[in-house]
C-alpha cells in the first residue's frame, strides 16, 4: 500500500552506528577512547613525511577488512572505500537490518570530500614514469568519489537511492541530511549514510599545508587544539562515520535498537569567499537556525553542540560568533566540544564521524571534552568542555559542519523516546 504520509509526518531514527577514527577502529573503541580523552594524533606512518610540511596526522589503527572483502576485491578499492565498507558493516550489524531482503527500499549516501586520492597519486606516478599504456583499468572506478556509496551498496545489497554528496568538510553532514530528506519524502525506508575519507596522502598534506590550513606544529600533543589561543591550523585525520537511518515505524515494527532520533537538517551557503567564513559566521548561524526551525524547537532546547572546531584561527573564532548569534546569552551555558581535538580533521568524513558521536552522546548521556585546550582565547569564550568528558542530561544535540566553498550544515539529533 502506498505510504501517503506527508514528509513532516515521517520520523527518522538512528538504529546503527559504525565508526573508525584515529582513536579506535570501531564504534565502542572510538567512543570510549574519546570519553577517556585519548589523543589519536601521531607521527605519520602511511606515507613518508620527511620532506612534507606536516609530520603528524590522525591515522586509523589497523582494521580487519577480511570479514567484508576478499583480498582481490580489496585491492581494487581505495582506502577511503575500505573505511566506508567496514564502518557500514559495523552499523548494519548493530541495526540488525536485513538490507538484502528489503534492498529496493534501502539507499546509500556516503560523502567524501576528495575520493581515492592515494590511488590517483600512484597512477600519476605510473603515467609520468611508464606512460599512459600502463595506467590501471581500475583507476577510474577506484578514484571517483561516489565509489564508497557504490561499493557499500554492492557489498550489502542496498538497491535504493544512491549517490555521494560533496561539500568539502561538510560532505558527510550533507550526505546524512540528504538521506534524512530521502526517507522523509518516502523514497526509502532506510538509508546507510555518513562520510568516509582517507586523507593522509602526500598531495593532500602538501596542498592543505600550501593553503595555510594545516598546523605547522609537529608535536602530536599540541598540534590539534581547537579554541586554544595557540592554535595554528588543523591536523589531517582519516576515518569513517556511518549511520543507519530508518523510518521510525519500520524500526519499531522490527524491534530495532533505537539509538536516537534524527530530528532535522539545515543547510546554507555563505556565498562569500572560497576559504574564509562570512562575517560573524552568518552562514553557519543561518544553517543552525534552519535546523532548529525544522526540528520545531528553539535554541534553548539544545543541550550540547558538537562543533566543527577545526583548530584553525579563523574557523574557531567565527564558529564561536555564529553560536553566539544563534544562542544569544544562553551560548555561555551550552557545552560545545570538538571531536577534532583528538582525531584530527577527517574532511569529508567529519560530518559522519561527529554525527556518530552525537548519537552515542545521546545514548549514554555523556559528552566528550575538547582536548589540548590550555590557554583561553578571548575570542573563544564559550564552555568548550575542556579536557574532561562530562555526564549530563541530553535531549537535543546539534552537530555543525562548515566547508571550504562556504558550505554550512547543521544536524539535530534527539534522545530516543521510551
Amino acid at each position, binding site marked *: 500500500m502506498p505510504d501517503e504520509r506527508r514528509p513532516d509526518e515521517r520520523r527518522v531514527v538512528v538504529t546503527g552506528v559504525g565508526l573508525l577514527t584515529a582513536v579506535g577502529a570501531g564504534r565502542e573503541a572510538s567512543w570510549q577512547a574519546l570519553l577517556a580523552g585519548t589523543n589519536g594524533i601521531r607521527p605519520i606512518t602511511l606515507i613518508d613525511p620527511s620532506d612534507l610540511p606536516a609530520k603528524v596526522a590522525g591515522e586509523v589503527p589497523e582494521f580487519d577488512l577480511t570479514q567484508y572483502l576478499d583480498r582481490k576485491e580489496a585491492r581494487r578499492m581505495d582506502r577511503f572505500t575500505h573505511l566506508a565498507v567496514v564502518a557500514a558493516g559495523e552499523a548494519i550489524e548493530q541495526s540488525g537490518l536485513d538490507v538484502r531482503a528489503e534492498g529496493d527500499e534501502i539507499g546509500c549516501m556516503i560523502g567524501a570530500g576528495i575520493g581515492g586520492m592515494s590511488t590517483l597519486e600512484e597512477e600519476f606516478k605510473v603515467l609520468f614514469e611508464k606512460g599512459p599504456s600502463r595506467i590501471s583499468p581500475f583507476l577510474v572506478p577506484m578514484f571517483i568519489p561516489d565509489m564508497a556509496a557504490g561499493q557499500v551498496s554492492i557489498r550489502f545489497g542496498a538497491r535504493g537511492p*544512491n549517490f555521494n554528496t560533496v561539500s568539502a568538510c561538510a560532505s558527510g553532514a550533507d550526505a546524512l541530511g540528504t538521506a534524512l530528506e530521502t526517507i522523509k519524502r518516502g523514497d526509502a525506508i532506510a538509508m546507510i549514510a555518513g562520510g568516509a575519507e582517507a586523507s593522509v596522502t602526500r598531495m593532500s598534506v602538501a596542498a592543505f599545508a600550501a593553503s595555510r590550513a594545516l598546523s605547522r606544529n609537529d608535536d602530536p600533543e599540541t598540534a590539534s587544539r581547537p579554541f586554544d589561543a595557540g592554535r595554528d591550523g588543523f591536523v589531517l585525520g582519516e576515518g569513517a562515520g556511518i549511520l543507519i537511518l530508518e523510518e521510525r515505524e519500520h524500526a519499531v515494527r522490527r524491534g530495532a535498537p533505537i539509538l536516537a532520533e534524527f530530528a532535522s537538517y539545515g543547510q546554507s551557503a555563505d556565498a562569500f569567499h572560497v576559504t574564509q567564513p562570512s562575517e560573524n559566521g552568518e552562514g553557519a548561524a543561518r544553517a543552525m537556525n534552519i535546523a532548529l526551525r525544522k526540528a520545531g524547537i528553539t535554541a534553548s532546547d539544545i543541550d550540547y553542540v558538537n562543533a566543527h572546531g577545526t583548530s584553525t584561527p579563523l574557523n574557531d573564532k567565527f564558529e564561536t560568533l555564529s553560536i553566539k548569534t544563534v544562542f544569544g546569552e544562553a551560548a555561555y551555558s551550552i557545552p560545545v566540544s570538538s571531536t577534532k581535538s583528538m582525531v584530527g580533521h577527517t574532511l569529508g568524513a567529519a560530518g559522519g564521524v561527529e554525527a556518530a558521536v552525537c548519537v552515542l552522546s545521546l545514548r549514554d548521556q555523556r559528552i566528550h571534552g575538547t582536548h589540548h585546550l590550555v590557554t583561553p582565547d578571548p575570542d573563544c569564550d564559550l564552555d568548550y568542555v575542556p579536557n574532561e568528558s562530562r555526564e549530563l542530561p541530553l535531549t537535543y544535540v546539534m552537530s555543525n559542519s562548515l566547508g571550504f566553498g562556504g558550505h554550512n550544515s547543521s544536524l539535530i539529533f534527539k534522545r530516543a523516546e521510551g
Partner: protein
Amino acid sequence: MARVVLTGIGLITPVGNDVATTWAALVAGKSGIGPITHFDTSAYECPIAGEVRGLDPASVVEAKLLRRLDQSSIFAIAGAQGAIADAGLDMPRENGKRVGVVLGTGMGAAHLLVDQQRVLDEKGPRRVSPFLTSHMLPDTATGLIAIAIGARGPNFAISAACATGGAATGEAAEIIASGRADVMITGGYEAPLTPVYYAGFHAMRALAVAEDPTKAVRPFDADRSGFILGEGAGIMVLESLEHAQARGARIYAEWLGAATSNDAYDMVAAAEDGHGVAQAMREAMAEAHLQPGDIDYINAHGTGTALNDRAETTAIREVFGADADRLMVSSTKPIIGHMMGAAGAVEAAIAALSCYHGVVPPTINYHTPDPDCDLDYVPNVARTAPVRRAMSTSVGLGGHNSAIIFGRWDQ
C-alpha cells in the same frame, strides 16, 4: 509539495556553447566527436573525443581567478552564466537565501591535480599551490557560483559516476518541491580529457574505435563497439511554479519526478537485466503518478557499449511492457559523446527541450539492427512529434542509476 519548472538552460557541449546552437546540432544529427587536441595522443590507436570548442575562458571569469581554476570549473561557471541569462533571472532582485546551487561532477578537478602532482614530484611539497585544496574539490564550482551570484541557499555537489548529472538535477528539484528553496541552479559538468583519465578509460577497453570519429559511437546498432568521452556542462535553472509565474518567466517544461538507485551488483559492469535502471524509472514514474502509457520519449543512457544498450533495452521493455513499442527512445551520445558527470544533466535538458519543441533528436550512426535492441530508436533523423512527457535515464560505474521526468508545459 511545490510544482517545479525549468526556466533556463546553459549548455556547453562538443556541438555548441549555448542551448540554441547545441539543440540545432542535435536535431540536425551533426556529431561533435573529433580528434583529441587537448594533449599528446601519440600513444593511442584511436584518440578521439567530444571536445568543447570556441569557449574563451577569459570571457567566463576574470584573469586572476582563471589561473586558479580547473577546466571543469570553467565549464560549470560558463554553463551557469548561460542558464541564468537564458532564464532571465535577475539575481540582485532575488532573495539570495532562497536560491541554492546543487551541481554534480563525476571526477572533479583532474587538470589541476595533474599539474600540481607534477609540481609535487618535480619541485617538492613546498611549491604546491596554496589555491589547490580550495579549487580541486568536487564542490568547488558550486561554491564559486554561489559566491558569484549571491546564492545563499542549499549548496553542495553530488557524485554518482555517469549518473551524477541526473542525480543532482533530481535532488535540486526535490529541494524546491519540499519548500527548501525557490530557485536552484543545478546540473552537471565534467572535464575528463586529461591524459591520466583518458588512459584509465582506455585501459578499461570501453572506448569505441573508428576511422571517422563522427561515426564512432553507434548506440543500439549491432556493430556498436563502445563509447567516446565528451566534456562540458549542462546547467539548468529550476524554480517553483509560483516563483516563475510571479516573475513572468518562460517555462520550458515542468519537472514531474526523479529517482536514483543502485544495481548492488558490480563496480564496473551494469546488471545484464538492467534491474537497477528499471527500478529508477519505475520510482520516478511513481513519484510523478504516471503510467507507462504517459511517457512519449526516453533520452536513453545509450552509451554504445554492447552490454549497456542491451541491458537498457531489457529494462525499458520490463518497465513499459506493451507500451515499449510506441515509445521513442534515442541516444544523443554519438553527437555529444559521453559527458560523464555532465551527461545526465545535458540529457535531462534535451528531454525537456523535446517536450518544449515537439521534436525528438535522433540516434545517429544507426544502420544494422541488433535483435537484442528492438525498440524505436528514432534512427538517424529527428522526428517531429508531440512529446507530452519525456524521461532521461543514466547508468554509472559503481552501479548508480538515475531517472528524471519532464512534462510539456501547456499553459
